[in-house]
C-alpha cells in the first residue's frame, strides 16, 4: 500500500501509437501497446481493469505543443496561482492540460516581473479519453509530462553543462529537438521521420537543426553574436561515426554526439525494452526523476496526492521511529558498556575482599570482627574520657578547707555537665567568663558558713570568703561563681542592717569547675 518501490507505469503517448511501460528498479519493460484510436482506448480500459491503485504517468511526445513566453508581476502564493491561471486561460481555450514554467525574474526599471513559459498541447482532446480511462479505473496519476519537459533533466544527466543547448534525439514519434537555456526549457519541436539509413538521418538532423536555430534567432531566443550553439545529438547505437562525419561543427553550430547505449548508462537505465529508441531515456526519467512542472490539473492528480500524503505520514512515523531507534541504540550501547564496567568493578572488589579475608584469617583470633573491635574500643575510650570520678574534687576541697579552719562545710555537690552561663550570671559575685564554659566539665558547688568571726565584721567575712574562693581556683579548677554572704555588688541591694541578725553565721556558695579532656 505504501511501498517504497512501487512500480510506476508510464504511457508514452505519440500521434499514432501509445506504449505502456513499467519502470521498476532501473529497468523499463514494455507492458502493452495501444493504437491511438477507439479500439486502443477500449484495450487500455481493459488493461486498467487489474491496475486499480497503480501509479501512472503520461509522457506525451506530440508535434502540436505550444510554447509561449510571458511576463507576469512578481507575486507569490495564491496571487501567483490566480495570475498564472488567468494567463493560461487567455492563451489556451482548453486549460485542462496546460502548464506555466518559470524562467526566472526579469527586472525592469519600473517593476520586478517573472518570466513564464506557457506550454500546452494544440489538441488536448486526443489525450482526454485516455486520462478519463485512468480516472475511471481509479489509477493514481502522478502527472502528464511532455518529452520537452524532461529534456533539461536528461541534458544534465548526459553531462551537458552548456549555457545554451539543443538536445536532439530520434524518438519513436520522430526527431525531437529541445532548446534548453541555462538549464530551463525554452522551445521544442517534433519533426516526423520515416525509416532511413544513418547517414540520411544524420543529414536530416543537421538540416533540421540549422532550421531550428535560424528560427530561434528570429525569435531572439538565441543571440546572433553569442557564439556557436551547442548541439547534443543522441545517436542510435553503433552509428555514431556516421553521425560525426555528417555533423561537423561550424561557426553557428557545435555538434557533440552520444550513443544511445552510453546515454542509457548515464541515466542508469539498466535494461531498455527491445526496439526502444531514445524515448526510453525520457520515459525512464519521467518515472524516476519527474520534473515539478507538468500538465495535469490538481483534480486529475488527486488520488496520487492522497497516496503521497498517506505515504508521507507513514514515512514520517518510520523516520521518527528510526531516529528513536538510533538514539535508543546509543543508550543501549552506553548501558551495555556501563554494565561491563560494573561487572569488572565487582570482580575487582571481590578479588580485594577475598584477599582481605585471606590476610585477616591470619590475625589473632577474636570474638568479633576487626571493625566491631575497633568501634567498640574506640568509642568506649571516647566515652570514658568524658566521665570522671569525684575523688579528685573531694581531695581538692578537703585540702583547701584544711587551710581555713573557721569555714564549716554544709553541702558539697559534684557533677559532670556543661556550666550554665545564665545561672552564673545570677551570682552575687560573678567572675570573668571561664574557659570551662560551654564544654563538658566537672562542676563542684561548695556551700558553707564562716565561723569565729563577728557577723558585724562584714568586711572581714567577705575577705575570708574571697580568699577561700581564690584558694579553690587551683589544681586545674576555675572559679565559676561566688555567692558572698553579703551582696556588695552594684547590681545588688545594700540595706542598713548589713552585719545584723547575729543568730545565724554568714553563708556562702562557691562553684568551681574543671574541663574534662
Amino acid at each position, binding site marked *: 500500500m505504501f511501498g517504497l518501490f512501487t512500480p510506476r507505469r508510464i504511457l508514452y503517448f505519440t500521434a499514432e501509437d501509445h506504449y505502456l511501460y513499467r519502470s521498476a528498479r532501473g529497468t523499463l519493460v514494455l507492458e502493452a501497446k495501444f493504437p491511438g484510436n477507439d479500439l486502443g482506448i477500449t484495450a487500455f480500459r481493459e488493461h486498467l481493469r487489474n491496475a486499480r491503485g497503480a501509479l501512472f504517468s503520461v509522457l506525451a511526445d506530440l508535434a502540436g505543443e505550444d510554447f509561449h513566453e510571458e511576463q507576469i508581476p512578481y507575486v507569490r502564493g495564491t496571487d501567483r496561482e490566480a495570475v498564472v491561471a488567468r494567463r493560461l486561460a487567455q492563451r489556451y481555450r482548453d486549460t485542462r492540460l496546460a502548464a506555466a514554467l518559470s524562467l526566472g525574474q526579469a527586472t525592469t526599471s519600473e517593476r520586478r516581473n517573472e518570466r513564464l513559459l506557457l506550454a500546452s498541447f494544440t489538441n488536448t482532446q486526443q489525450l482526454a479519453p485516455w486520462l478519463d480511462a485512468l480516472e475511471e479505473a481509479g489509477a493514481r496519476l502522478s502527472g502528464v509530462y511532455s518529452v520537452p519537459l524532461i529534456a533539461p533533466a536528461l541534458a544534465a544527466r548526459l553531462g551537458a553543462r552548456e549555457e545554451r543547448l539543443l538536445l536532439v534525439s530520434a524518438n519513436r514519434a520522430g526527431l525531437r529537438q529541445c532548446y534548453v537555456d541555462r538549464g530551463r526549457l525554452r522551445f521544442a519541436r517534433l519533426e516526423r521521420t520515416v525509416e532511413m539509413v544513418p547517414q540520411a538521418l544524420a543529414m536530416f538532423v543537421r538540416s533540421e537543426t540549422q532550421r531550428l536555430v535560424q528560427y530561434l534567432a528570429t525569435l531572439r531566443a538565441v543571440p546572433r553574436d553569442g557564439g556557436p550553439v551547442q548541439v547534443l545529438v543522441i545517436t542510435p547505437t553503433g552509428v555514431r561515426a556516421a553521425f560525426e562525419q555528417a555533423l561537423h561543427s561550424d561557426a553557428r553550430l557545435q555538434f557533440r554526439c552520444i550513443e544511445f547505449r552510453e546515454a542509457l548508462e548515464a541515466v542508469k537505465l539498466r535494461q531498455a525494452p527491445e526496439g526502444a529508441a531514445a524515448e526510453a531515456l525520457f520515459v525512464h526519467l519521467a518515472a524516476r526523476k519527474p520534473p515539478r512542472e507538468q500538465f495535469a490539473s490538481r483534480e486529475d492528480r488527486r488520488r496520487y496526492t492522497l497516496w503521497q500524503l498517506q505515504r508521507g505520514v507513514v514515512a514520517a512515523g518510520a523516520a521518527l521511529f528510526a531516529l528513536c531507534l538510533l538514539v535508543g541504540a546509543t543508550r543501549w550501547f552506553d548501558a551495555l558498556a556501563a554494565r561491563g564496567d*560494573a561487572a569488572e568493578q565487582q570482580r575487582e*572488589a571481590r578479588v580485594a575482599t577475598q584477599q582481605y579475608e585471606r590476610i585477616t584469617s591470619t590475625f589473632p583470633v577474636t570474638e568479633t570482627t576487626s571493625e566491631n573491635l575497633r568501634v567498640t574500643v574506640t568509642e568506649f575510650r571516647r566515652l570514658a574520657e568524658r566521665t570522671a570520678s569525684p575523688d579528685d574534687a573531694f581531695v581538692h576541697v578537703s585540702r583547701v578547707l584544711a587551710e581555713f579552719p573557721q569555714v564549716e562545710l554544709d553541702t558539697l555537690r559534684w557533677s559532670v555537665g556543661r556550666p550554665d552561663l545564665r545561672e552564673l550570671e545570677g551570682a552575687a559575685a560573678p567572675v570573668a567568663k571561664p574557659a570551662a564554659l560551654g564544654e563538658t566539665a566537672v562542676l563542684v558547688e561548695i556551700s558553707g558558713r564562716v565561723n569565729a568571726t563577728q557577723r558585724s565584721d562584714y568586711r572581714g567575712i567577705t575577705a575570708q570568703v574571697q580568699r577561700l574562693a581564690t584558694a579553690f581556683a587551683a589544681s586545674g579548677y576555675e572559679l565559676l561563681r561566688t555567692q558572698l554572704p553579703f551582696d556588695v555588688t552594684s547590681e545588688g541591694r545594700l540595706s542598713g542592717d548589713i552585719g545584723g541578725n547575729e543568730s545565724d553565721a554568714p553563708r556562702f556558695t562557691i562553684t568551681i569547675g574543671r574541663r574534662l579532656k
Partner: protein
Amino acid sequence: MKLTRDELKRLALPVVIGLALAAAGAALIWSAGATRLAASRALAAAQAERKQAVERLNRISDEEREVSDKLAFYQRLKSLHILGEEQRLEWADAMTRIRAERELLEYPKYVVERQKLIHSYPAKPGSVDFFASTMKVNLALLHEQDLLRFLSDLRASGYAYYSVRKCGLTRTGQAASGTTMTPRLRGECEIDLITVLDRGAKR
C-alpha cells in the same frame, strides 16, 4: 486541497501506523534511557564497593596493628562483663556485698531506671550499641571517705562501666549519741551503669 470524508477515512490507517511508530520509538527511547540509568547506578555502586574494598585492603597492616592493640582492651571489657547484656541481679549482689564488706550504717537506698540506648555505632557485620541505666543511690555516711570507697567498690564489681554524673554530700545535723553509730552525712549520687552490646560478636 480540501479532503473529502472518504479521503480522510483513507488517511486514518496511515495516521494510526505513523502514530504507532512514533509511540514505539518514544517507548524505545524511554526503555533504553531507563536501562542506561539503572546501569549507571549499578556502575556507581560497584565503583564505590571496589573503592571501599581496595582501601580496606590497603589499610590491612594498620588494621593488624590496631587489632593487636585493641584486642587486650576488648577482652578486659569482656572480662569485666561491661560487654554483653545488662545483668541487674549482679548489680544488686554487688550492693549487698559492698554494704556488708564496708559495714555501712544503712543498706544503700537505690533505684535503677529503665535501660536506654545512648549511642549506636554502625559496623560490620553488626552495630555496636551503648546502653545506660541510671542508678540513683542514697547513702548514710559517717565520713565522706565512705562515699568514695563505695564508688570505688562499685567500679571494681564490674558488670557495667560506672559513670558518675552527680554526687552530693550533705550534713544530717544529727548529733553523735555515743551509744550508737549515727550518720553525720548523707550522700546522694546519680550513676550511669553503661553496658556495651557488640552485635557483631560471635555468640
